[in-house]
C-alpha cells in the first residue's frame, strides 16, 4: 500500500466486513432487498451507489465549513438528488431495459440511508480525500452484500447467472436438471431477499462473535 497510508487503507477495508453498512450499521436496506432478484441489477445498483456516495462525500466534505448546520439536511438532499439525476439519465441512455427494471429504485438512492448516514457521520467532519475513500469503502461493502444476495437469488431462483444458463436448460432437461433438480421460484419473490440477508447476518456473526448483539 504505497499510495495509501495505513489509516487510509483502513477506511476502505473496515466497511467491507466488520463495519459493513448493511449487516452491522443497518443502513440502506431498502434497495438491497428490492432489486436483488437478478445479479445484473444488483451490480448496476452497486456501481450507481458507489458513484453517488464517493462523489457526494467529496462535495459535502468540500462544503462542510460553509453549510449552516440548521439546513444541512436540505443541502445534502439537493447534492444527492443532483448526482442521482446524473446516474438516472446515464442509465436511461445506455441501459434502458435495466433502468426499467430498477424503476423507482434509482430515485430512491436519494433517500438511501447509507448516503445520508455517511454524510452526517464522516464527510461533515473530514477532508475530501478521506471522505472519498470512506465513500468508496462503504459503497463497496454495500455492493458486496448486494452481489451476494443477487448471486444466490438468481442462481437458485432461475438457474442462471447474469442471464447465462449455468445449471443447464430446465425445459430440455440438460445439466443438473437431468437429475431431477428444479428451480425454486420462491427465491425470486421479494420476501426471500429478507431471509437470505438474515442468513448472511447469521453466518457473519457466528464467524465473528464480537458482533453478536445482546
Amino acid at each position: 500500500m504505497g499510495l495509501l497510508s495505513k489509516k487510509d487503507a483502513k477506511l476502505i477495508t473496515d466497511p467491507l466486513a466488520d463495519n459493513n453498512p448493511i449487516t452491522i450499521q443497518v443502513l440502506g436496506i431498502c434497495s438491497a432487498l428490492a432489486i436483488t432478484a437478478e445479479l445484473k441489477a444488483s451490480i448496476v445498483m452497486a456501481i450507481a451507489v458507489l458513484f453517488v456516495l464517493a462523489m457526494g462525500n467529496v462535495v459535502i466534505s468540500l462544503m462542510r465549513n460553509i453549510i449552516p448546520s440548521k439546513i444541512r439536511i436540505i443541502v445534502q438532499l439537493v447534492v444527492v438528488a443532483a448526482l442521482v439525476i446524473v446516474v438516472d439519465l446515464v442509465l436511461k441512455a445506455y441501459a434502458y431495459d435495466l433502468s426499467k427494471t430498477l424503476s423507482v429504485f434509482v430515485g430512491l438512492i436519494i433517500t438511501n440511508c447509507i448516503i445520508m448516514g455517511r454524510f452526517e457521520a464522516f464527510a461533515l467532519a473530514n477532508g475530501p480525500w478521506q471522505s472519498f475513500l470512506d465513500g468508496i469503502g462503504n459503497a463497496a461493502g454495500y455492493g458486496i452484500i448486494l452481489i451476494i444476495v443477487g448471486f444466490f437469488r438468481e442462481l437458485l431462483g432461475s438457474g442462471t447467472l447474469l442471464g447465462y444458463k449455468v445449471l443447464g436448460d430446465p425445459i430440455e432437461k440438460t445439466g443438473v436438471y437431468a437429475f431431477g433438480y428444479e428451480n425454486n421460484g420462491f427465491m425470486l419473490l421479494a420476501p426471500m431477499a429478507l431471509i437470505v440477508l438474515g442468513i448472511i447476518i447469521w453466518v457473519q456473526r457466528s464467524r465473528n462473535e464480537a458482533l453478536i448483539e445482546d
Partner: protein
Amino acid sequence: MEHLELFFKSIFIDNMVFATFLGMCSYLAVSKKVKTAVGLGAAVIFVLAITVPLNWLLDQYILQPGALAKTLGPEYADYDLSFLSFILFIATIATMVQLVEIVVEKFSPSLYNSLGIFLPLIAVNCAILGGSLFMQSREIPTLGLALTYGVGSGIGWFLAILAIAAIREKIRYSKVPAPLRGLGITFIITGLMAIGFMSFGGMLTGGDEDKGESKTEQAILKKDTVKENEINKLSENGENKTAINQ
C-alpha cells in the same frame, strides 16, 4: 369504489414494507418498543398524506411532458421537465417536514412532544419519497386518489411497524441462536410476515392476470401447501412423542 379499492390495495397488497421494502431503515431502527413505533408510524401517515397530493400537483402542472402548457400557456407545450422530478419531490418533502415541525410545535406542544423527534428522521425515510415516486410511475389520475394513496400507504407502513415492534417485544424472552439475535431474527420474521402479506395479492386481481404469472403463482402455492403438510406432519409427530412421554 375506486377510492376504496386503491385504499385497500395500498394498505395490504402494495404494502410499503412487505411488498416494496421502503422505509426499512427506520422500520428496523425504531421498532424496539411499541410506543415509539406508534409515534413514528403516525408521523409517517401524516407526512405521506400531505406530500403525496402536493407532489401530484407538482407533477401534473410542472413536471409532466407538456404540463407547462396548462400553467404558462400553449407556447410551452414542448417542454419536458420530468428529469427534475427527483430534486423537486425531495425538496418539497424536506421543506414540508420542516414546516410541519414548526407548525406542530407552535400549536400543539403535546403532539410535538410525541411526534417531534421523529419528524427530522422522516425527511430521509424512503417510504415518503417512494410514495411520491410510485404515485408518479403508477399515473394516479386525480388529486383525491393521490390523497387516498398517500393515506393508505401510510397506514400500511404504520401497521407493519406496529406488528414488528409487538413481535420484537415478545421475542426478547425467546431462545434465539446468539448470532441471530437482534437484526438477523428481525429480518427473518419480516420475511415470513411478507410471505403472509402476499396472500392478499389475489384478492383484487383474481382472474385477470396473464397466464404466465398465474402459473408460477400456482407452482408456488403448491410448494407452500407441500411445506405446510410437512410442517403439520412434523408437529403431529412431535405431539405424539410428547403424548408418549407423558
